[in-house]
């Protein structure tokens, strides 16, 4: 055993020296390889971190949300629906929620206005999300004006700015007292935006949802897990789509690698010829090529992955965040929490190192079976 190890060590030693002798060629390969790994890793890290972020956020969401549909579209729900739903066995509580969107024509942005129960705000004042505050340069104590549903402008005093930590959720949020919001938005009393349900036993969720549809055929219950599932599918889909688009680049890289591996220079051929003439076997040359591939792959893979880590978690994926986050004017500014698991690394490995390795097998074999006699003579 030690003999085999010693032999491989010497071959690796020789390979490293020979790689360093051809800095130009290998440098180009390393750069392209690293870039490919970097792009793919950034996409994967970013979508995965967003997915985790979304699922963390949704942990606090209500178990079931009941919406009403009218003409196949989402519509305000009568509050008395809650009374009927409360009668279903297993439902621990029903709460109407009042909220809506507001389009700001000056800043071309959509805000979310909520009127939560028991919000502590003096009359005529609101709480403002940090994103809006930043964009409109409005701070605590300032007065801000919004146009209501009747076309009249109303002034509100900013009672406080919502904390920065919850930016992902509250960047575009405005909190208002319920009565004021109904007056502002024109939502008649007796109607709510949707109902939230508390159900104690998670196994009963599907049954409760089925019963709600039976009692109230125009309602649309949504279970929290379904939202999670949809987000999950959505983010994976975006990541997958980007990878499909980048597969052209991946293909180009594979062709590049093939070309680099099969286009041996006269000098390299001569080197292999001499090695075989002094007693190296074809299998030794194949080992050398294996180590060569391993050194290049691992170096590029590590470099690309580390660069992607910095890109995604320190600069918040500045290069292609807009594609992956979705369309919005008011982006929350936040730093993603790093979520990386071995499966992601393995996926990345399969998308980059495996195609590279497979394409270089045949060129390496061709190099390894060069006839020393013919090379040295030419």
């Amino acid at each position: 055993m030690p003999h085999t190890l010693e032999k491989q060590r010497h071959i690796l030693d020789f390979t490293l020296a020979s790689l360093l002798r051809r800095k130009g060629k290998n440098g180009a390969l390393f750069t392209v390889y690293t870039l490919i790994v970097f792009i793919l890793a950034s996409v994967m890290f970013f979508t995965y971190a967003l997915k985790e972020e979304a699922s963390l956020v949704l942990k606090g969401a209500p178990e079931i949300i009941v919406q009403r549909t009218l003409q196949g579209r989402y519509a305000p729900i009568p509050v008395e629906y809650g009374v009927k739903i409360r009668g279903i066995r297993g439902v621990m509580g029903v709460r109407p929620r009042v909220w809506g969107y507001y389009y700001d024509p000056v800043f071309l942005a959509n805000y979310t206005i909520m009127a939560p129960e028991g919000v502590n705000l003096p009359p005529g004042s609101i709480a403002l999300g940090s994103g809006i505050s930043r964009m409109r340069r409005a701070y605590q104590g300032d007065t801000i004006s919004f146009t209501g549903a009747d076309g009249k402008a109303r002034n509100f005093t900013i009672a406080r700015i919502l904390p920065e930590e919850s930016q992902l959720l509250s960047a575009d949020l405005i909190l208002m007292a319920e009565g004021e919001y109904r007056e502002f938005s024109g939502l008649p009393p007796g109607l709510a935006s949707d109902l939230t349900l508390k159900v104690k036993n998670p196994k009963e969720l599907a049954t409760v949802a089925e019963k709600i549809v039976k009692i109230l055929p125009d309602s649309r219950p949504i279970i929290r897990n379904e939202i999670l599932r949809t987000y999950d599918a959505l983010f994976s889909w975006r990541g997958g789509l980007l990878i499909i688009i980048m597969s052209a680049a991946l293909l180009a890289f594979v062709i590049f690698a093939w070309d680099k591996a099969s286009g041996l220079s006269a000098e390299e051929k001569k080197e292999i010829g001499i090695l075989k003439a002094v007693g190296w076997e074809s299998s030794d040359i194949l080992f050398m090529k294996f180590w060569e591939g391993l050194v290049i792959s691992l170096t590029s893979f590590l470099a690309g992955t580390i660069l992607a880590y910095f890109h995604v978690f320190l600069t918040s994926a500045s290069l292609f965040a807009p594609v992956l986050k979705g369309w919005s004017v008011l982006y929350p500014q936040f730093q993603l929490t790093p979520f990386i698991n071995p499966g992601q690394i393995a996926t990345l490995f399969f998308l980059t190192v495996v195609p590279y390795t497979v394409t270089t097998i045949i060129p390496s074999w061709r190099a390894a079976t060069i006839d020393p006699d013919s090379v040295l003579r030419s």
Partner: protein
Amino acid sequence: MILNPGILALLISSLLIGFMVLYSAVHGAQILRRWDITSGSELQLALERKTYLISTILSYFLGIQLVSLFLFIFTVDSLSPLFVGAMCAVGSLTVNGYGYPTLLLKLVNFILAGLWLIINHADNAGYDYPIIRKKYLLLILLTPLILAESALEIIYFLQMKPDIITSCCGSLFSPASRGIASEIAAVPVLPMKIAFAVTMGLTLITGTIFFLKQRLGGLFALLTGGNSIVSLLSMVSFICLYIYEMPSHHCPFCILQKEYGYIGYPLYAALLLGSVTGMGVGVLIPFRNKPSLLLTLPGFQRRLALTSLISWIIFTILALRPILFSSFRLE
């Protein structure tokens, strides 16, 4: 089809592997037909060179196959939130009828490719390639299995449809309508414990006898094969339960997760290595009388037996540790 990076990676690699294996099978067939060690013709020289190519391809294949086995389980597991009623990989694998066959073929192909490499190694040690025909016949038999694995995997992923919210309604997917299993039906615990103790004990004993005295090799290989199956069933039946400390969670995949310290990886790695090397001892027995292998083969078989024994011991220690040292009791 779900556009997920993991699925794309698996599909790309299985297409590449399918192509490479097909390529080497074509050359293997050529070797099988035209091989003549006594000839000095140009064709024979080219064929001898091709043996290097094929063994290189197969060695890479084995490595890729091992990682892809785990990546497959990981990806399938990460897809489980997309299906109503699926709790982990067990549920996603039953989404359609191609999940478990793919996994099974992946395991079988891994073991067969491992055995092929063992035969290849033994063959290369002899100066006249004494078992080259059998080797390439095995390769040609292996090819359809590997292609079938790629095909099954592709169909499995293409036929997946996630249960996501549609605009008309949420929530009305019922898990019963599709028959997703959230748990695996398992063999009763006590008979399985006895079977595990017996086969593992016999395997270790015959392996030691073979290592020391070069006897009972065939029996050892057979027992290793049986032991692999019994060990896999035991994982589902009781070993996993002790690791999870839950009396009804039989999933053999969740032990690969972080919550359980990734203990599944060394467990399965030891199991696979023990199986391949142990069976390798048996596969080589028919070739012991080849004159050019007389010197090298016995030593190689002993090394294989030793590797297998060490792997099984590691597997046993890892499996028994939670059984002996946790406060969880099944009975």
